[in-house]
């Protein structure tokens, strides 16, 4: 018997970059390179983001006046459903993991690729397939159930293309599951020699926690959507009380996935913030171990709080009390992270580059969003605010003010690594400021609207709400400009921006030890790690 111990071949340096290793369409569509797959995802999710943003623009335009004078009620209802479905499943959930995670994770670990590259490519194709099905549902006539698909409206009453939309999300869910699986195995098995768990950058910890949720929660969504589809097809009463079913069962199953899903959406953003705060204050993150464990705590506790979406749903009051308690507890690790980031700035050497501006925006807006989440965890306050614009403002603060800013910050931070070039710094800073201002103007008035009682998912409202709605719509226009600008200047910089060295930020981390852009196989020789993470030199 011949025992084969194969050592990784020494790749001759300098190798061409991943960008010019093949120029045909086929070399992109059949690539196994995690970096190219990351870019494929970047194009795809940007496409869905634009469609969903246009739907939001139409909604805010309609809401300029109390009367329904722009679109029909059915059209409006389909717009908010489209906005929710595309933004949640086809933009936010994939965003950082599939774009930045795919690109940066192996580099950060000192690996040549993810554990299962073919599975990675398959994930992208599955994602596209799901997206096409969702698009078909939209174009064929749309769905008006809201992204939450509550029964029996979605299973028995709605006349839209519910099954097709649910099928699209079902298929895209497998893309999530396979990505999460790939990341878990990669992080366990493909770390460079010497890279122990507590030497990992915090971005890796957050991706690990995210992947655990992706893998364990998404299957429950899949089965829930399958049940809705079958109920529509067979006419049985799984969730229809007229046939003996229980509509609340749907809500429990749906939120069992969808609450952990919001942590899928926020954890990677927190990881980006940790990286950028460390780099741009040139200091190790305060309480590194606690922040790492906090990511896992958020993931674990996040599975136990789904009932806080159902306090007024007619679930048992004692269940409500338990879920409220757990929801308060899950807020603690997030609060810890915010304190740790602030403490990191102390005695740092801070430079206000664009990624840091996005990180600071994240911290501020996520804190507001998170605290309003604590408001909603408080039972009687939720009775008052549930299904009003207060909830809409809350989740947009955490998802848009938090996650999207984290995403943009990460894109800017790793842009030199991805493209080998720099964007125009002042344009980027102004753009970040426009996003921040536009965002607050759009969503802060909605807290007040919710407090005053304006319900969600309405195309018309009582006249006394108009002033706040006009403010919100004005903010949305500004926010839109803030999002269009990066599309323009980042694309421009990809082709015409000044080229950079391997480490333009002078940051720690293995991804900065290789060229910008990286060669196809990442490293000429796999690095060996001996230092702690964020080992910036002392500053005094």
């Amino acid at each position, binding site marked *: *018997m*011949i*025992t*084969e*111990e*194969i*050592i*990784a*071949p020494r*790749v001759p340096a300098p190798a061409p970059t991943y960008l010019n290793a093949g120029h045909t369409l086929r070399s992109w569509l059949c690539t196994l390179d995690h970096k190219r797959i990351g870019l494929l995802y970047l194009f795809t999710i940007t496409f869905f983001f634009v469609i969903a943003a246009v739907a939001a623009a139409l909604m805010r335009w309609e809401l300029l006046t109390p009367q329904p004078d722009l679109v029909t009620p059915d059209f409006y209802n389909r717009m908010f459903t489209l906005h929710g479905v595309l933004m949640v499943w086809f933009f936010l959930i994939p965003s950082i993991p599939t774009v930045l995670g795919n690109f940066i994770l*192996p580099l950060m670990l000192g*690996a*040549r*690729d*993810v*554990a*299962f*590259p073919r599975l990675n490519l398959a994930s992208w194709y599955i994602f596209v397939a799901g997206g096409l099905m969702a698009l078909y549902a939209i174009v064929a006539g749309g769905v008006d159930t809201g992204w939450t698909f509550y029964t029996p409206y979605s299973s028995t009453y709605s006349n839209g293309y519910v099954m097709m939309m649910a099928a699209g999300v079902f298929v895209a869910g497998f893309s999530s*599951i396979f990505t999460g*699986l*790939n990341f*878990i*195995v990669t992080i*366990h*098995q*493909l770390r460079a020699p010497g890279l122990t768990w507590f030497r990992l950058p915090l971005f890796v910890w957050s991706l690990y926690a995210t992947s655990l949720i992706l*893998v*364990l*929660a*998404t*299957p*429950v969504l*899949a*089965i*829930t959507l*399958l*049940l809705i589809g*079958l109920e529509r*097809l*067979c*006419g*049985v*009463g*799984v969730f229809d009380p007229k*046939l*003996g*079913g*229980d509509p609340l*069962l749907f809500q*429990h*199953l749906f939120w069992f996935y969808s609450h952990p899903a919001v942590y899928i959406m926020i954890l990677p953003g927190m990881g980006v913030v940790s990286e950028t705060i460390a780099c741009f204050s040139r200091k190790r993150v305060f309480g590194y171990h606690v922040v790492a464990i906090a990511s896992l705590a958020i993931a674990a506790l996040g599975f136990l709080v789904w009932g806080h979406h159902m306090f007024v749903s007619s679930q048992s009051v004692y269940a409500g009390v338990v879920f409220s308690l757990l929801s308060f507890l899950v807020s603690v690790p997030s609060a810890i992270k915010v304190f740790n980031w602030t403490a990191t700035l102390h005695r740092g050497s801070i430079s206000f580059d664009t990624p840091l501006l996005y990180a600071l925006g994240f911290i501020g807006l996520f804190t507001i969003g998170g605290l309003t989440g604590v408001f909603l965890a408080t039972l009687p306050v939720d009775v008052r605010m549930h299904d009003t614009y207060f909830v809409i403002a809350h989740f947009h603060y955490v998802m848009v003010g938090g996650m999207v800013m984290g995403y943009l910050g990460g894109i800017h931070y790793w842009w030199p690594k991805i493209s080998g070039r720099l964007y125009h710094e002042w344009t980027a800073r102004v753009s970040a400021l426009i996003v921040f201002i536009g965002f607050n103007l759009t969503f802060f008035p909605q807290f007040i609207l919710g407090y005053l009682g304006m319900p969600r998912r309405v195309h018309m409202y009582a006249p006394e709400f108009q002033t706040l709605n006009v403010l919100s719509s004005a903010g949305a226009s500004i926010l839109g400009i803030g999002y269009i600008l990066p599309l323009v200047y980042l694309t421009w910089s990809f082709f015409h921006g000044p080229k950079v060295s391997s480490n333009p930020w002078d940051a720690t981390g293995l991804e900065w030890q290789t060229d910008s852009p990286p060669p196809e*196989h990442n490293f000429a020789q*796999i690095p060996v790690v001996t230092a702690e993470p964020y080992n910036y030199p002392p500053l005094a």
Partner: protein
Amino acid sequence: MSRAPSLPSHFSTVEQRSVANHLGLWTFLATEILFFGGLFVCYTVYRIAYPAAFVAGSHHLNFWIGTINTGVLLTSSLFMALADRAVKRDRRTALRWCLLATWLLGAVFLGLKFYEYGEKYHEHLIPGPNFQLNGPWKPQIELFIFLYFTMTGLHAVHMIGGLTALAWLLWQNHRGRLSPEHPAPVEMVGLYWHFVDCVWVFLYPLLYLIIR
């Protein structure tokens, strides 16, 4: 002479790839547990709500086919375990026969299952327009039968996937690519097959054995 495929460049040792494959498959099985778990939750909720309907519904199932199928599937798992043993001892003939036996028993299981489904069709017990039943608890019995079809149907889909994987294994063995140095494909498919068997071990009493 057995030939193991060359190691992809992102793995540095065979050992590393083997551990990665195992971890990947166990993670995948965890997702499957959650997937079936949603259906088990659904079943539990409605069984507690309508115990009489579930008893009545269970009596409409073909106990004998369910029991024989359980035996068939457990035996197929036995052969799968023997196949794993054979590949590690480099016994290609034994490996071929064990894989074939597993595949055949799996096919027998599916054949009996589809026969059962056909029976339900003739008894007018397919949930939906075909469903006809007199007596109390009709909608709830229809719900039970629906859960029966969904749970066993999903299980059958996984069986078909397993049969495909086994066929692929037989072909790999034919090409001489399985060896004690490269037992991973047999191990992986084996793990998956045993898992699918485990799911059935839960489905069988929950569906067929309610108060007998």
